């Protein structure tokens, strides 16, 4: 989506809160015509005719909208995401100094414990570009406001004060960083001296406490005040001034959620200056002014102007440490300045103020629109009158809702200068009429709907605000992949034994409906598998020493979090461990095709040295385990999408911001599935080695059964890529695609680094497969990706209607392919004619330069689940 389209909201369900406010829109655009919608408040949206848009009469497809419809928009602009610099925010020495200061002594192992807790969460070092800064900035901002890190004997902790719902949001952010918290409520009595009288009142105080000393240390290291704020001098952390605008917005927003008064009008129409104040001991007046100056500088960097600080008249508080006084600053309330502030900075961790702020932005834009329209009418009326049109005619032709007859007459007779804003509607009334539910979003009038030409990408995703990465559940669940092993055998040696080999492997590797694995594993072993994949196999005699280094990422992806995997998923995974599965999954004995041995030199690097060498290919995944994780998180994401205001065209594309709790949980679970898939293929390959060894009466090592490579082709991975000339960390989703990293990439196994990674492309069981190599061009053009296989052209049902399994099996045998399948129906479904021509697919990728042909592999024996 283009940048001009920001600000629209298309929701599948009624939104309640926006959480971190990651408004994401996603559309699928075929090249061709799209609709361009313009609204009164100045929003533009380009979308396909069938894209649902939320309106006053419910969800309406864009093509069915009429000019009388009112569409829901988010009036606030937000801040575009820009990549922060990799600035180190504190040094190990700072951390040590902070621990000294907050009383974490160097005696015993207290310090080591705190450091360990930070290390466990990878928070012992922190750079400004860390994605978790989104949460940390808000938490830090709130601590400067309604939070404290008290200096008490039992050690520091962090307290937040506010409304219950807003504290819950803080709690969720803390949790996403790996810190727990508890909510408390108590009745309190307060006494304050005002200019008039001492004032006393009762209130219920809600607080949230995070007991972690590590969190307190982290926040103080980042610059949070420690101990009583009123009794010490401090300013804002200087690194804030090096942060990106969206980061400054989050920090300020959270501080203002706590400290800044809410947007409110003087008389129903004109807004007061929102105010915030700093209270300190009289002796620390300079520090109070210094802190306010920091805030003002930070605001000015976002084009927001503020008033000079002034003493809070009449406020004083006599506490145990002495008398404190207050200074305050206001956000200048002229319309452009206030609009900019509310729309781009606003409030965080305070849903009430956020809603009001959003509505106020809409109201200010509305008033601006009315003013513009009245000026236009005034000018027109004067011109018409000058050219001789009668007053009656002018009034008749120009009267409208915003410019009534008396205004027009006044314009003709005496009108000069700018029109006053016609006080058509008070803010409260506007909010009441325009607000969509309790969201702060407004119903906006459509000004125009045009059909325009668009030559765009097929999928394009825009995410507003700070969370620029999202993780899509539906496309990466199965974690299946390809594994290729070589042998030193020639086809002439293997040909007479293909049947024996296939039958033996068929017995050793279970396949089919509801099948169970032969390897029994305990819960704790399964935990290890989820975490360490093939590395676990190597440590438990289920892999050769070299195997892990020939698996993508050295045998396992980092970041697995077994605690995010459901009990159901675990059960399915344990039961099916070591099984092949069904559908298009297979195990195949293949022979190098001498006629299509494209690059013998490169092939040698991959262990292919002969023209008729025998290879074995395995295509399968994490079985029901990954699918169950997918089903579990589909539910979670369904709810999360509502909360984050995300809408997708197909529910299977359920997703969540990567930095959100849901996104992180899913990623931790998905990595478990990927590691289980690597392990599953490893266990199957061990069985294949066993079968070959038994048939040839030689050990598998002497048969040269080395792992060439194992690579996923349904996965989301965090990778670094060059975008517009600079290196960026991206979340790359590969679905129906596989990695194709070129020469020199550090993630390519050392053995292949000089030439690029092996790319394994599986075709149908009749037509064969290919081994290719990754290219530098793939790095430039496709984020290091290429197609993963041939893809079907015929449905399973249609394939079964066209060909009978038994007949296919006989015909394949005539062509020298011995196939053994669990069911004949399953075999028919996988017939070669149901797939695209693999050679054509590979040729296309080779010509596009995103992977390069090395050798074609012809099937001679096949096992189908």
């Amino acid at each position, binding site marked *: 989506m283009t940048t001009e389209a920001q600000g629209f909201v298309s929701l599948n369900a009624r939104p309640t809160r926006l959480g971190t406010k990651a408004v994401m829109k996603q559309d699928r655009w075929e090249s061709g015509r799209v609709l361009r919608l313009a609204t009164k408040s100045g929003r533009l949206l380009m979308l396909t005719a069938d894209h649902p848009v939320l309106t006053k009469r419910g969800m309406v497809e864009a093509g069915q909208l009429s000019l009388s419809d009112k569409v829901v928009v988010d009036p606030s602009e937000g801040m575009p995401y820009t990549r922060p610099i990799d600035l180190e925010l504190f040094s190990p020495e700072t951390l040590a100094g902070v621990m000294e200061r907050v009383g974490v002594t160097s005696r015993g192992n207290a310090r080591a414990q705190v450091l360990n807790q930070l290390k466990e969460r990878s928070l012992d070092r922190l750079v400004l570009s860390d994605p978790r800064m989104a949460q940390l900035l808000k938490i830090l901002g709130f601590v400067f406001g309604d939070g404290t890190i008290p200096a008490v004997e039992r050690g520091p902790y962090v307290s937040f004060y506010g409304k219950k719902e807003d504290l819950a949001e803080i709690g969720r952010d803390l949790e996403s960083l790996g810190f727990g918290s508890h909510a408390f409520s108590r009745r309190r009595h307060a006494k304050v001296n005002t200019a008039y009288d001492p004032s006393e009142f009762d209130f219920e105080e809600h607080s949230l406490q995070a007991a972690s000393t590590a969190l307190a240390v982290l926040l103080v290291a980042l610059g949070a005040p420690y101990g009583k704020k009123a009794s010490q001098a401090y300013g804002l952390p200087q690194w804030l001034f090096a942060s990106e605008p969206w980061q400054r917005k989050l920090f300020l927003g959270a501080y203002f959620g706590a400290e800044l008064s809410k947007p409110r009008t003087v008389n129903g129409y004109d807004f007061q200056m929102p105010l915030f104040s700093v209270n300190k001991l009289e002796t620390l007046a300079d520090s109070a002014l210094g802190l306010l100056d920091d805030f003002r500088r930070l605001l000015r960097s976002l084009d927001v102007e503020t008033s000079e600080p002034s003493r809070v008249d009449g406020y004083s508080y006599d506490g145990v440490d002495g008398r404190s006084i207050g200074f305050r600053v206001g956000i200048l309330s002229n319309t452009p300045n206030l609009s900019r502030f509310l729309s781009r900075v606003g409030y965080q961790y305070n849903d009430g103020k956020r809603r009001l702020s959003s509505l106020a932005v809409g109201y200010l834009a509305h008033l601006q629109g009315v003013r513009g329209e009245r000026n236009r009418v005034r000018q027109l009326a004067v011109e018409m009158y000058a050219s001789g049109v009668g007053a009656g005619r002018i009034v008749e032709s120009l009267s409208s809702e915003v410019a009534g007859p008396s205004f027009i007459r006044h314009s003709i007779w005496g009108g000069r200068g700018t029109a006053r804003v016609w006080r058509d509607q008070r803010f409260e009334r506007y909010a009441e009429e325009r607000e969509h539910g309790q969201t702060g979003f407004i119903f906006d009038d459509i000004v125009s709907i045009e059909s325009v030409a668009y030559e765009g990408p097929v999928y394009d995703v825009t995410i507003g605000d700070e969370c620029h990465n999202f993780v899509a559940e539906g496309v990466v669940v199965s974690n299946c992949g390809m594994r290729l092993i070589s042998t030193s055998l020639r086809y002439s040696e293997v040909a007479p034994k293909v049947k024996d080999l296939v039958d033996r492997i068929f017995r050793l590797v279970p396949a089919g409906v509801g099948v169970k694995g032969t390897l029994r594993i305990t819960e704790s072993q399964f935990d290890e598998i989820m975490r360490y994949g093939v590395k676990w196999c190597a440590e438990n005699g289920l892999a050769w020493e070299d195997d892990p280094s020939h698996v993508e990422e050295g045998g396992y992806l980092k970041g697995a979090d077994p605690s995010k995997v459901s009990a159901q998923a675990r059960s399915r995974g344990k*039961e099916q461990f070591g099984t092949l599965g069904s*559908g298009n999954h297979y195990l195949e004995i293949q022979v190098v095709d001498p006629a299509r041995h494209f690059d013998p030199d490169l092939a040698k690097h991959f262990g292919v040295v002969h023209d008729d060498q025998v290879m074995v290919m395995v295509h399968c995944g994490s079985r029901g385990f990954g*699918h169950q994780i997918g089903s579990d998180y589909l539910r979670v994401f369904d709810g999360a999408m509502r909360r984050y205001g995300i809408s997708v065209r197909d529910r299977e594309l359920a997703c969540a911001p990567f930095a959100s709790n849901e996104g992180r949980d899913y990623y931790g679970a998905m990595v478990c599935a990927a590691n289980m898939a690597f392990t599953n293929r490893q266990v199957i390959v061990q069985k294949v080695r066993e079968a070959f060894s038994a048939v040839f009466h030689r050990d598998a090592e002497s048969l040269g059964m080395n792992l060439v490579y194992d690579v996923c082709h349904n996965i989301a991975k965090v990778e670094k890529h060059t975008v517009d000339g600079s290196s960026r960390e991206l979340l790359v989703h590969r679905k129906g695609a596989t990695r194709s990293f070129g020469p020199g990439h550090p993630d390519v196994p050392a053995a292949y680094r000089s030439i690029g990674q092996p790319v394994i492309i599986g075709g149908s069981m009749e037509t064969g497969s290919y081994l290719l190599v990754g290219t530098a061009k793939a790095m430039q053009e496709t984020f290091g990706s290429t197609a993963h296989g041939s893809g079907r052209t015929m449905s*399973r049902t*249609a394939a079964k209607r066209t060909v009978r399994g038994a007949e296919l099996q006989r015909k394949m045998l005539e062509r020298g392919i011995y196939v053994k399948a669990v069911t004949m*129906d399953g075999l028919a479904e996988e017939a070669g004619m149901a797939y695209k021509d693999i050679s054509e697919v590979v040729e296309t990728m080779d010509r596009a330069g995103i992977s390069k042909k090395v050798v074609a592999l012809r099937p001679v024996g096949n096992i189908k689940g």
Partner: protein
Amino acid sequence: MPYKLLPDVALADVAFEADSATAGGLFEVCGRALTDIMVDRRGVRPTKERVVRIEGKELDRLLYDFLTELIVVKDVDSLLFKEFRVSLPAGGGLVARLEGEPIDRKRHKLRNDVKAVTMHMFGVKRQGRRWKATIVLDI
């Protein structure tokens, strides 16, 4: 048969459309359709009974959870069902009484191993006086 396969909807998966006069009936039809895709149900004997309870208010989620449960039971307990009786109590949730038997590779004519219910095109709707659902299964 109150369901029909949709061969052109999803090439790599199996899709079907189910139809019934009642919402509970719709769940039963979907359960049968899912099982028919995995096994020739005529050969499954109703020797074991299992009662499944699922919490929830939204009908489409309940259906998703119900079908997912049948897949989990197939993988974890190796059970396939012949008979399905589903009631949807007024207070929400679902109670299903299922009758079937453990997988017997010799006797059962097994078909596709269903891995998951997808959300692609997933939906339950009321059309006139009938209940309809579209389901795409990942094979």
